[in-house]
C-alpha cells in the first residue's frame, strides 16, 4: 500500500501548511490584511498567498507600517512587487503618528522607531476595520515567539497575553472573536530562516538587492555594522568606511545592522546561513536592549 512517491519533503509540507492557513484566514475573517514590509519573510507570505488563490488575485489588502526610516531600495521593491501582484497597498506612517502627537519620538544616538510602530499598526488596523493581520513572523526567530499560535488572538487593546492563548490542535483554527478584537496570523510559524531561503530559491522569488552583497558606507556601533544613510547620524569618534556587506533583515535603517559578506546570490547566502554563528535577530539593536525585549514588545501588540 505504501508507495515511494507518497513521501513529501519538508518544504512541501511547510508550503501546503502555509497555504492552508492563508485560505483559512480568507474563509474565517471578514476583512483580513497582509502586513507587507518588503522583507524576505513578507515576500514569502505574499508569494504563498498568490499560490493559494491562483488563478484569482491575492484577495488581501497589503499594509506597510512605514517607520519613515526605510531603505529606498526596499520601498522601490515593495511598490513594484505589490503592483505586479495587482494588490492594493496601504501605507501607515509612523511619521504621521508622531506628527499627530499619537506617539513621541525616542531621542539619542540609538533612537529607534521600532517601538512606535505598534501604535501606528494598531491605529491602522482599527481605521481600516481589519479583523486579521497576516504576518511573516516565525517561531524560530526569538524565544518569545516559540509559543505563538498560527491564529493569535489579540484583545481590544491589541495586546497578546501569553498565558491566555487558545489551544491549537491538529489543523483546526478557531478565529472567532468579539467586535473590536482581532487576530494576528502567522503562516510561516514552522519555518526556519533556512527554510525561507531554500523556498525562495526553489520558487525563484525576487528579493530587494539589500539581501545580496554590495559595497556601501558603514560605521561600527555597539558591535554592529550600521549603514550610513540619511536616517543615521554619524557620531563623533565613529569612522565611516566602505565595506562589502549584506543585510539579513531589511527593517528600520536605524536599527538594522548589516554583516560583511561576499554572498552575491542565493546559493552563497544559503551556504552562509548554514554556517552562521549568529541568529538573524542578532543584528537587531532593539532586541539587545534586554533579554526579554521581544516579549515585552509583543505584549504591547508588536508584530
Amino acid at each position, binding site marked *: 500500500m505504501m508507495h515511494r512517491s*507518497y513521501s513529501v519533503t519538508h518544504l512541501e509540507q511547510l508550503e501546503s501548511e502555509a497555504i492552508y492557513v492563508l485560505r483559512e484566514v480568507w474563509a474565517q475573517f471578514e476583512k483580513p490584511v497582509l502586513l507587507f514590509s518588503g522583507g524576505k519573510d513578507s515576500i514569502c507570505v505574499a508569494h504563498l498567498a498568490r499560490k493559494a488563490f491562483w488563478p484569482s488575485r491575492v484577495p488581501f489588502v497589503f499594509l506597510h507600517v512605514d517607520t519613515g526610516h526605510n531603505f529606498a531600495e526596499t520601498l522601490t521593491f515593495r511598490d513594484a512587487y505589490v503592483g505586479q501582484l495587482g494588490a492594493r497597498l496601504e501605507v501607515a506612517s509612523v511619521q504621521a503618528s508622531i506628527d499627530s502627537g499619537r506617539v513621541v519620538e525616542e531621542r539619542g544616538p540609538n533612537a529607534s522607531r521600532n517601538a512606535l510602530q505598534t501604535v501606528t499598526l494598531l491605529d491602522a488596523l482599527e481605521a481600516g476595520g481589519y479583523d486579521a493581520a497576516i504576518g511573516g513572523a516565525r517561531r524560530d526567530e526569538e524565544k518569545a515567539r516559540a509559543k505563538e499560535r498560527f491564529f493569535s488572538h489579540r484583545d481590544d487593546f491589541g495586546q497578546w497575553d501569553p498565558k491566555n492563548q487558545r489551544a491549537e490542535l491538529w489543523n483546526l483554527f478557531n478565529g472567532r472573536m468579539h467586535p473590536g478584537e482581532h487576530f494576528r496570523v502567522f503562516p510561516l510559524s514552522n519555518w526556519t530562516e533556512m527554510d525561507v531561503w531554500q523556498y525562495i530559491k526553489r520558487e525563484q522569488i525576487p528579493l530587494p538587492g539589500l539581501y545580496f552583497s554590495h559595497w556601501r558606507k558603514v560605521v561600527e556601533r555597539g558591535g554592529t555594522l550600521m549603514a550610513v544613510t540619511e536616517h543615521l547620524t554619524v557620531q563623533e569618534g565613529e569612522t565611516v568606511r566602505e565595506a562589502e556587506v549584506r543585510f539579513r533583515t531589511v527593517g528600520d535603517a536605524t536599527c538594522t545592522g548589516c554583516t560583511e559578506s561576499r554572498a552575491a546570490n542565493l546559493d552563497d547566502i544559503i551556504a552562509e546561513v548554514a554556517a552562521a554563528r549568529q541568529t538573524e535577530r542578532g543584528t537587531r539593536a532593539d532586541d539587545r536592549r534586554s533579554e526579554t525585549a521581544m516579549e515585552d514588545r509583543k505584549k504591547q501588540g508588536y508584530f
Partner: protein
Amino acid sequence: MSEREESADNYLSMELLRFTTAGSVDDGKSTLIGRLMYDTKTIFEDQLEAVERTSRQRGDERVDLALLTDGLRAEREQGITIDVAYRYFATPRRKFIIADTPGHIQYTRNMVTGASTANLAIILVDARNGVIEQTCRHSFIASLLQIEHVVVAVNKMDLVEWSEERFEQIVADYKNFASRLRIPQITFIPISALHGDNVVNPSPNTPWYKGPSLLYHLETVYIGPDANHVDCRFPVQCVIRPHSDRWHDFRGYAGRVAGGVFKPGDEVVVLPSGFTSRIKAIHAGEQTLEEAFHPHSCVITLEDDIDISRGDMLVKPNNQPHVEQEIDAMLCWFSDKRRLQAGDKVLLRHTTREVKAIIKQVHYKVDVNTLHKVENEPELKLNEIGRVRIRVASPLFVDEYVRNRITGSLILVDPFTNETLAGGMIRLP
C-alpha cells in the same frame, strides 16, 4: 565538508518529523532539548551568550542548557515551563519540529495540543524514580492521540551508575503497564541528557546497550505510513472564482487533502448533496498535478457545474465517510471557567465545518493515572478526559480518529466567550 554545508545540499529532499516531549518536572526535558539543539549546532553564538550570562547571574556552576528552551518571562520567574513551545532543528537527514510540553498535572491540555500533530513522542523517565504516575499519564495521552512511535528515554543514567539491571527493570515495568495501551512502536534508550550519553553518539558508559542513539533513532524511524492514503477525503476550504476575462468560467475548490489519492478523471461524490462528477484538473498555483494526497494543498475543478461551498467534502463513491448527526468522542476539556455537562450547547468545528452541538451524555471519564473509568461523575473539568455523546445540528462527515486524524478530530468552542473548550477524537457509537 562540514555537517552544516552538507545539510545545505541535501536540503531540498529532507523529510520532516514532528515530535513531542513529555516528562515530569526535573526529569531533564529542557536539558535534553537544549542538548539536542546544542549538539546539532542549532544554537547560535548570541543565544549561547545570553544563556551563559543568565547562568552566571544566577550563580550556576555550569551553563544551564535548559535555559535555551525556557521561553517566557513568567516561566523564568517561576522556573517552570507552562505552555507548548515549538522548537526547530535539522540534521542532514531530517528537519525536526519539537512540541515542547510541560508535565504538570494541570497541563494535560498542553500535552494533548502538542501530541495532536506529532509523529513521535519522547517520554522521559528519571532512572532513579522509574515508571511513575506521570509516565503512565503521558503514555496514555500518546496512545489516545494515536502517536505511532514512542521513545522511552531513561534519563540520568549517570546517577544510577549506568546500571543495566536498573534499565531493564524500567523497561519491564513500562512494558507491563503499556500492554494496556495501543502504542504501535516503543523504543527504550538509556541516556544522560546532562552529559550527552546516547543522545547524539553511542555512549562508552553503556556497552551493554546495543540500540541506536536517540538522535539516530529520530533521524531514521520510518514515518511513511502515518498518513492515510486509502480513504479519499477532500474538505473544501473555499471556492476560487477569479471573475477575470481570462478565467471567466473557472470554478475551483480549494482545500488540503485529508486522505487518499485524487487524480484527474476520478469520479467523486460531493457531500452532503450527494451529486457526482469527475475531476477535471488539480491545480497547485500555476502547476497542474497528476495526483494529490495528504498533505497537499490544491485546487480541484470538476467536469460538472455543481453548487459546492466551504464545509462540503469530496470523496469517492465506493469509500465514503460516516455521515452522522450523533457521534461519540474522547474529549479533553481545556476550560478552567466552565465544566462540561449533558445539555450544554456549544459550537463544534470539524474539518472546515462549524456546527451547533449539544452534549447528550458524558459516558465516563478516565482517571489518567490509573486508566480506570469513572462512571459516577458525569461531567468534565479542566484537564479531564472522557467519553462523550454529542448531537450536532447538521450532519458531519467523519471517520474514526484511529483511521484518520484529520476527519476524526474536532474542537468545541464556547459560543459566547469564543474560547476553545475541548479537543476530541471521534469514535463511532
